[in-house]
């Protein structure tokens, strides 16, 4: 699979490393080159400095040939915009994005974005841990 990951924070870097290790073709995009330090030395994919909400940068990252795109920058709104550009303008078959704010996530669910809210997921995880002991 040809995957573009927008945002090379802890989650982005780890996801990139995992997908790369499984043999997928991974391209990571981030606005600051310094973020790429989070990638392991074994990472064999491509890194690119660029803005994931910019059509030109996404094109350079090869979005027209991507099978999937994941938007995991620090900003909910940035993720929402990147994901919508990927889905509605470049018609990427699979687009996932992170939205911390659960209320905002609900809206974008209804607008057809496949969004994950770490807030909800983590709260539920903690709850089930608490209940298990």
């Amino acid at each position, binding site marked *: 699979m040809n995957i573009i990951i927008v945002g090379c924070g802890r989650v982005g870097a780890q996801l990139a490393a995992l997908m790369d290790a499984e043999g997928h073709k991974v391209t990571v995009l981030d606005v600051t080159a310094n973020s790429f330090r989070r990638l392991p030395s074994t990472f064999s994919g491509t890194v690119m400095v660029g803005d994931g909400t910019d059509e030109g940068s996404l094109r350079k990252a090869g979005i027209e040939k991507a099978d999937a795109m994941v938007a995991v920058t620090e900003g909910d709104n940035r993720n*929402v915009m990147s994901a919508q550009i990927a889905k509605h303008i470049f018609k990427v078959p699979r687009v996932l994005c992170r939205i911390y704010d659960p209320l905002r996530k609900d809206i974008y669910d209804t607008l057809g974005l496949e969004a994950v809210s770490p807030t909800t997921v983590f709260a539920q995880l903690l709850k089930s841990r608490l209940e298990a002991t």
Partner: protein
Amino acid sequence: MYIIIVGGGKIGYSLCKALLDEGHEVLIIETDPGKCEHINEEIGTVCMRGDGTETATLADAGTTRADMIVASTNEDEDNLVVCQVARHKFSVPRTIALVNNPKNEAIFKKLGIDCTVSATNLILEHIQQEVPTHALIHLLKMDQQGMQVVEVKVPQHSPAIGKRIDELPIPPTTLLSALIRQDAQPLLPKPDTVVGAGDRFIAVIIGEMEEQLRAALVGA
């Protein structure tokens, strides 16, 4: 009308003052406490502190009864989200987004924001209208159909001079609707009208035909 402005920067602030003067009910939502305080001191309690891209904040601001929302922050992604949340969660009838990066204007339109304002594009359009060196001038945009009205001036050395209109490679979806010649009444261009230097055509064009029309009447 009840108008909510998200972003209390220079644009939001001045817009708020102007709208209040016109008798509208206005609320600014601004994240920065300093800016918020400043606005409230200057023009009365019209500024609420909060993140206008958050559903909860917009609910507190009474967005359900807003007639219009204007997103004027300096981050395009925030302006996009403000308008989308206002439209889809609160059914605000009219949403206007400031577009900081002119490239985003087209993206916003494709993502369903009905009205966008880009300062860069506005100034560019003015320059094109003011500076006579531009052979093709945008006169009017008719957004919904992607149509626009343009004016094309035939320059001195255009290859079109002396040719009939039906001999020129005018793009198919283009309608030449008026011809203005110096010291003469406007004419309706006909297929056998011969083009002269200095002729000004008013044309309705669709989509990407602009460059082809320019090439036909102005040359390379």
